[in-house]
């Protein structure tokens, strides 16, 4: 028998901000148990690794605070796991809808693509591609609209970060430095 949680809005389940996280205090959401198990295992692994830093050599060893914090992680993670395991499941949610809706999966795929292409292709083409596909997918607006928004945003961000703040994004196939030099020569020549 599954118990129905109080009818609550999605907002409450997802929390209104970082100070008030989501979740349902009395119920277990899909995937929550697996996450709790993962955290407990990861904490155990980190505690092990913290012990490897310097063992129990001295109070002042570089491993002292990491050992204390990872131990705290393990204890709390186990307590949370125990609590979570005993909670009744929410009856109205599935993993597919509550955790991995199509839009989240799509974004994840796009982000992985971005991460893979950033270095070989360079910042400008990768970002343009990412924005174009993402906006097109999510909004379903026309190609012209999407294209204009994409171009304007990428150029805007590039101008601020690359030109004003001289942040050197991966250039990839676009010879950014040469283009900038052409403009610089143009301006210097004209002045």
């Amino acid at each position, binding site marked *: 028998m599954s118990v129905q949680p109080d009818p609550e809005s999605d907002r409450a389940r997802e929390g209104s901000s970082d100070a008030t*996280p989501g979740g349902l205090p009395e119920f277990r959401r899909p995937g929550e148990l697996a996450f709790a198990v993962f955290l407990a295992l990861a904490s155990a692994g980190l505690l092990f690794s913290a012990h490897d830093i310097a063992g129990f050599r001295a109070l002042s060893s570089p491993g002292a605070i990491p050992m204390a914090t990872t131990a705290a992680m393990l204890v709390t993670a186990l307590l949370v796991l125990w609590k979570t395991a005993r909670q009744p499941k929410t009856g109205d949610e599935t993993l597919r809808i509550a955790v991995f809706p199509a839009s989240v999966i799509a974004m994840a795929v796009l982000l992985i693509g971005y991460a893979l292409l950033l270095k070989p292709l360079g910042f400008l083409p990768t970002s343009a591609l990412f*924005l174009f596909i993402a906006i097109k997918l999510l909004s379903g607006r026309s190609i012209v609209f999407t294209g204009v928004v994409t171009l304007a945003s990428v150029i805007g961000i590039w101008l601020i970060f690359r030109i004003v703040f001289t942040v050197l994004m991966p250039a990839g196939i676009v010879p950014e430095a040469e283009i900038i030099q052409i403009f610089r020569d143009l301006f210097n020549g004209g002045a």
Partner: protein
Amino acid sequence: MSALMDFLTVFTQPQLLLLVGLGTFAGVYVGAIPGLSVTMAVSILISFTFAWDVYPAISLMIGIYMGGVYGGSRTAILLNIPGAPSAIATALDGYPMAQKGEAGTAIGVTTVMSFFGGFIGILVLAAAAPAVSGFALRFQPRDYMLLAVLGILLVGSLSSGSLLKGIFAGAFGIAIGSVGMDPLTFTPRFTFDQPMLRGGINFIAVMIGMFGVSEVLLQLHHVNTPAVRQKISRIVPSFGTIKRYLPLSLQTSFIGVIIGALPGTGGDIAALMSYDHAKRITKNPETPFGEGAMEGLVAPESANNAAVGGAFIPMMTLGIPGDAVTAIMIGALFIHGLNPGPMLMIDHPDMFWFIVGALVTANFFMLIFGLTGIRLFVKIVEIPRAVLIPLIMLLSIVGAYAVNNSITDVYWMLGFGVFGYFMRLYGYPLGPVILGVILSRLLDDNWRRAIISEREDLGRFFSGIFHSPLSTVLLLAVVLIFVSQTPLWRLIRRRKA
């Protein structure tokens, strides 16, 4: 009356006035864009203003500094991405307000309170710099450690859901902060023999991922829900509102100045501690904390701008930077032929009063630029989600990259974004993670310094605490807050009632 003349330098020279204004304006936007920091902007300005005179160069830097500290709150309120670490606490209640359509009000209050906090900071700098810096110097490693412990106790007020999950999140944050080569002994920690982990995990990347990306991923659940219409009826807060929050603002401004003046702690810790203070002393907020409480905006924003004046205190009196930005300004003064140090106030008293004057000017410009253009800024939230979400993603990526020109940081940012998404879904608070990362070094380094200084002897360590009034007070504060916060205490009280 030469002090007064030096103080008025900025006001009487149109060129300097213009530079401070320009700097403040730029600062607001630099601060608002995650990944672009005031530290970065000021260090670029060092080469840029290399050939200038010292007054114009410093004017521009001070403008950027003041505007930047304030600007961080913009994106925190509108997008839940703090533009700078010192705006983390602002996101906690500011973003919920924006989601209710009250972004305009939130920014208005933030601006006025930042102005007020900034002013208090400058006042303390002008009136009591030597006394405050003398006090700040008295902080020993064990005092910094106790301060860090005090900070870690904020986990209680940052986790409104499950305290257990909050403690887990806080400990996790401290662990993240210790990844990489330990800066004191160069021992690798949690590096798993991966070269890319040696440099540690960039804190800004964690922050952007946890706050920004996790929020965006959650928003993807409701791509088609129309964006919240923003009410823009009242932006400049009424006199009544200001008067009501003035006492809180004053208190948290003083927290800001002191924490800002301590070398080794800055606006980020000041803002979080003030948030906690507000939560503790506000018995019945109109809106609960975490859901858009005005007090939750007033406190951190007063404190982080007050910390600006605070950071200048050790810089001007001792040549010791109060934070990363003042560290670069010290470099700038060197380049311009001044010798920042304890003698600066004696050799160049004009510089001190000039800086105070420039700070006051920047503070006024911040108020002006803060209150104008809000209507336009608020429109960002009204952009359809389908366009806004990909844009925030891209901005987060660029921001994470920009901090240290590292693609690894981008991967971390995305990883923490996904992790934060799950944490949000399952009721783990994210605030304590960031708190843990911020306090990790402060706690770890100073614990080790303190215990090494006492030759690894815990007995000597505690007797040291009780022999110092400062340490004793800090320890008492730690104990009091701990007892008042633990569920144990609540349980005892409930039993008695």
